[in-house]
């Protein structure tokens, strides 16, 4: 009757992206953002049928910057970043912009509700 929640936090697995082994959880999010590089973003973007342009990379860099500065990421922050507005953000990463872009940026999934 109830779905089984796996409360075990051993989600860490090793994944090979762009020829390099990285630590990622089973949703594909990087455990260690310092392992990321741009080629990995390109490879991961294929899963979402997204072709990364300079604009995409500008957003990914912004996200990494904010994450590494310890700030909580919200879609509102991206909208006011000056790099893109929210409508464009949805076009750049359709289907779940913040979720997808943070995966491609090699940072953990944001935990904010907005």
């Amino acid at each position, binding site marked *: 009757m109830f779905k089984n*929640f796996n409360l075990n936090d051993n989600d860490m697995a090793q994944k090979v992206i762009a020829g390099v082994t990285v630590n990622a959880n089973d949703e594909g999010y990087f455990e260690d953002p310092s392992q990321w590089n741009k080629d990995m973003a390109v490879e991961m973007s294929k899963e979402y049928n997204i072709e990364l342009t300079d604009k995409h990379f500008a957003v990914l860099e912004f996200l990494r910057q904010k994450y590494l500065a310890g700030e909580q990421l919200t879609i509102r922050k991206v909208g006011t970043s000056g790099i893109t507005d929210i409508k464009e953000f949805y076009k750049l990463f359709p289907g779940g912009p913040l979720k997808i872009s943070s995966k491609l940026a090699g940072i953990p999934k944001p935990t904010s509700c907005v």
Partner: protein
Amino acid sequence: MTIQKEEHPLKKVCIICAKGAIEDVYAALLLANGAVMEGIEAKLFFTFFGLDAITKKQMNSLHTATVGNPAMRMPGGLPFPTLLGMLPGVEAGVSVMMKSQMEKLDIPPVKEFLEMIVAGGGEIYACKLAADMFKLKKEDLTEEVIDIITVGQFYELAGGQGTQIIFV
């Protein structure tokens, strides 16, 4: 914590907001925005006191109840006396405090929030019966509102597999 992937993920949510207090309106807005952020289609339907959230004159001054709200407490956790809640200015003051707490968590004011939802593909509607009751016309409502529709039209919008209707 890993949550198992659902075989039949949600495709569309239709959220009805019938109340005009801050907590009710924001619950509806967060549900709608959360949905579009996950790639789920979202339609928001405001009715009765919920119309305050999309009426130009009211949307920036939503309040929360300080009288008759059994869950209202003082900061610190002590009970909130009803007599205090009745005093002039207290309801407005508490509401402003609540909004500033939300701002700190990067939750935008109602107008900006509606813009964010629409930017993500969400659709905003108003209830015709409630609009007639409160004598409101489309010009009185914020630009993000697509149209004033009837309950029948709302149910048509809510059709389709993988759709859920949420009432706030």
